[in-house]
């Protein structure tokens, strides 16, 4: 993998964006110069940024995986050992990747992007599809919504981040993520300073869309480095339009438009995602470990190979219940004003009306 070869190209593309005066949330769209040319400098109110991955282009060179590591290495955990003894020891086990930093065939706290491969036959033709996998950056992310400490958040520019300083490492985000994306490293973070035996177990890590680069108007590392311009980033509505157009052109399919109610990562592929999901090596999602690669022992370090199956909107019920939550006080007031309460409430406990 001659990743250095691509460095110059990446830098020059950044230069191009800078020269164009594209701001922090600009249309950073190398693959669609017409869109990039539109003036969007410094307008984060433009809403969510989404990425588009054209899977027909990816050659599986792995440059993006390398670039991701390099770009984010300063954020990687440096755990303090030995880990605190946790209670109960049978159930609360440390997850340690610090001696396996080189693992690049799954998501780990030190590898936020990896490549899946699917060899499939579709309409009589063979395809070898390479799929860069990382956080989908859901539009309504359960990892952030369900975090009890406010450590995981979605930003206005459409990316979700987990604050390493606040995360307790309970891995709830991984449990509620439809793809089980965030990965845990024990021995780091807040829990060590609170009640390390009783609560918490490290910090969760995942792709944060290179926020440090985006904030400077630069492309995320994996996008900038790609020799095939597989990825495109820009305002979501434009990316959605582009994805649909691309899918039409190649008579292909889109993943991420409906999944979990919509994500800010859209994959476009010439072959159906059901076929891809069946062919990839995965350990999460429906039918994990059953289809495709045969039986596989569940790793004690949590799933790190996301599926590509259908995902319903996991927060949909909460959204419906929210209406009830906002109506309830109004209904209570109305009931009270209409006198429903007064009769029921007029009598006290063991009290006599006077």
């Amino acid at each position: 993998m001659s990743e250095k070869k691509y460095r110059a190209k990446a830098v020059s593309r950044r230069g191009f964006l800078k020269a164009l005066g594209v701001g922090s949330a600009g249309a950073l769209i190398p693959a669609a110069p017409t869109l990039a040319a539109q003036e969007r400098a410094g307008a984060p109110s433009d809403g969510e940024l989404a990425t588009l991955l054209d899977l027909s282009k990816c050659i599986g060179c792995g440059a993006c995986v390398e670039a991701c590591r390099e770009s984010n290495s300063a954020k990687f955990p440096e755990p303090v050992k030995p880990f605190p003894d946790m209670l109960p020891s049978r159930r609360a086990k440390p997850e340690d990747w610090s001696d396996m930093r080189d693992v690049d065939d799954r998501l780990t706290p030190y590898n936020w992007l990896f490549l899946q491969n699917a060899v499939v036959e579709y309409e009589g033709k063979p395809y070898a599809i390479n799929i860069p996998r990382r956080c989908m950056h859901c539009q309504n992310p359960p990892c952030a919504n369900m975090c009890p400490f406010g450590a995981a958040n979605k930003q206005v520019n459409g990316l979700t981040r987990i604050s390493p300083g606040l995360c307790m490492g309970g891995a709830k985000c991984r449990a509620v993520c439809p793809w089980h994306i965030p990965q845990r490293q024990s021995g780091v973070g807040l829990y060590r300073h609170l009640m390390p035996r009783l609560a918490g177990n490290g910090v969760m890590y995942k792709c944060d869309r290179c926020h440090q680069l985006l904030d400077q108007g630069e492309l995320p590392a994996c996008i900038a480095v790609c020799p095939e311009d597989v990825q495109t980033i820009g305002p979501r509505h434009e990316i959605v339009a582009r994805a649909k157009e691309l899918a039409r052109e190649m008579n292909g399919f889109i993943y991420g438009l409906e999944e979990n109610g919509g994500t800010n990562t859209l994959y476009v592929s010439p072959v159906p995602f059901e076929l891809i999901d069946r062919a990839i090596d995965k350990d999460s999602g429906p039918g994990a470990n059953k289809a495709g690669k045969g039986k596989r022992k569940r790793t004690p370090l949590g799933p790190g190979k996301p599926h590509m199956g259908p995902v319903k909107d996991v927060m949909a019920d909460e959204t419906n219940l929210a209406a009830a939550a906002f109506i309830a006080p109004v209904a209570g007031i109305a009931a009270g004003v209409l006198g429903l309460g007064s009769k029921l409430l007029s009598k006290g406990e063991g009290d006599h009306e006077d």
Partner: protein
Amino acid sequence: MRTRPYPAWISRLFILLVAALTFTGFMQMPLAKRYALTTVPGMAWTGDFFLVHKIHYVLGVALLFLVALVAVNWIKSWKNTLALTGLGLARAGVVFGLVVSGLLRVYRNLPGVTLDPAAILAIEWVHLTLVMVLGVLALVAIIRKSSAYAVRR
């Protein structure tokens, strides 16, 4: 004993809702599996984050209705005959804070709503802190044998 000059069903429903909300609220933290609560017969549901979350919502809806009903009746007719005790006032304030922070939490979870991370942190910790304060106040009220929120004037 005339501890509460308002109907018992209100107290009972309130205590039931607050207790259930506190439990499902604490279960938002990933504790059920770690502490083997899920292995207790009939408690397996505590390990289902989404189910516990939805139950918390439903209980919240019921509490919101009750609190609004009581508040209106207080303003309409009770305030002339009843007076909040000191502890009652403190607890009413805390419940109000819990309700507001809880509603903000619900709002935050709507699709299309993106709040500032600092605001989310504040909402989260205010909600979590207030429930603990309510617990302490309730304990004090029990010890002082003044668990009624209000007394007759």
